């Protein structure tokens, strides 16, 4: 950190020009992108003791860096989803968005709401499949339970949780009665990705789905 006296800077509180200026690099992080650094200025008024960013320069520098980081995060999220089998068109259909909406986000025309939505889908990619099926409550509940089972399988002792039976039964260990949901579940040999094939019973809503487990960047 360097320190200097800058006569050109005026204290916004007392109007004194006795201002000491220092600069330092601050690291910031946003979801789904690398950490980025911003050169920040720090002022100290020798007259009244006010400390801070007198010229609001830091906000300008931060906004520029944030814009680049957000663009990078959107690209990473969409690329990750695409690798997981969720294409831009698939996402648009699932979320009832007009065609080419996602392409516009990718090219830089996006809102804060779009970024929030993408972060949610990136964290819980299976939400796209639930959305595609009209946010069916029963399917959503079943998916949450399956995701929990898959995560337990991934992180826990394989002899302890679900892994050997091939289908889920009641689990007193975690206090969840899975049979009430009538969701027979089997796991594939690759629990880090998909492998969750299930059949919705009994209401003739039979089908087989597979979907990414956890976040798209979760290590296997």
């Amino acid at each position, binding site marked *: 950190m360097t320190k200097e006296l800058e006569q050109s800077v005026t204290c*916004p*509180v*007392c*109007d004194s020009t006795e201002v000491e200026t220092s600069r330092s690099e*601050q690291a*910031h992080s946003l979801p789904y992108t690398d950490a980025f650094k911003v050169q*920040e200025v*720090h002022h100290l008024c020798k*007259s*009244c*003791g*006010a*400390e*801070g*960013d007198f010229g*609001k320069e*830091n*906000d300008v520098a*931060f*906004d520029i860096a*944030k814009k680049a980081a957000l663009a990078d995060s959107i690209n990473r999220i969409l690329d990750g989803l695409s690798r997981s089998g969720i294409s831009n068109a698939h996402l648009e259909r699932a979320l009832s968005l007009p065609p080419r909406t996602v392409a516009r986000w990718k090219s830089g025309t996006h809102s804060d709401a779009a970024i929030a939505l993408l972060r949610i889908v990136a964290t819980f990619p299976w939400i796209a499949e639930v959305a595609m099926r009209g946010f069916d409550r029963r399917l959503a509940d079943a998916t949450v339970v399956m995701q929990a089972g898959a*995560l*337990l399988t991934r*992180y*826990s*002792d394989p002899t302890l949780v679900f892994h050997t039976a091939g289908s889920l039964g009641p689990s007193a260990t975690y206090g969840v009665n899975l049979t009430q949901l009538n969701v027979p579940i089997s796991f594939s040999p690759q629990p880090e990705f998909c492998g969750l094939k299930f059949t919705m019973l009994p209401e003739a809503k039979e089908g087989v789905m597979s979907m990414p487990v956890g976040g798209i960047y979760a290590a296997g």
Partner: protein
Amino acid sequence: MSDGKAKGGGAGYDFEVSREACKQGDVFIFKISEVKKDAKRLNLFSEKEILQFVAQPPDRLTFKDSRPLENDLFKSKGAAVDAYYFGCGQDTWYLAFLMAVSRKWVLKSFKPSDVLQAGDEPEVASGYQLGEAFAKALRGKNK
């Protein structure tokens, strides 16, 4: 109209006036680098975002007290410092502001509250806390 002096029992300033100043970005944030470290917990990263958040105003905004500034910071010894609690999710936060002798609004504090008000303590752990505990247990089991 604010006179910059603490008033017995009540707030020294009309919060609506300081809120409007925040909306206009016409408020100096004292020790912004420290404030920003805390504000990250609210996903607020810049001075502008913090002021806009205060201008909303925040949920469960509750007047705490108004006290005269004890030292001569901002050359404003004796100026009223109005303190408020506000909530965000399960957390209680604290903010304090004053109008300096130069008639400039200063956000003096913006941080998580150290002292929860009576009745604010959550009776059950939040979903986040449960998730954290669960993840910790899984990590331990995975070793």
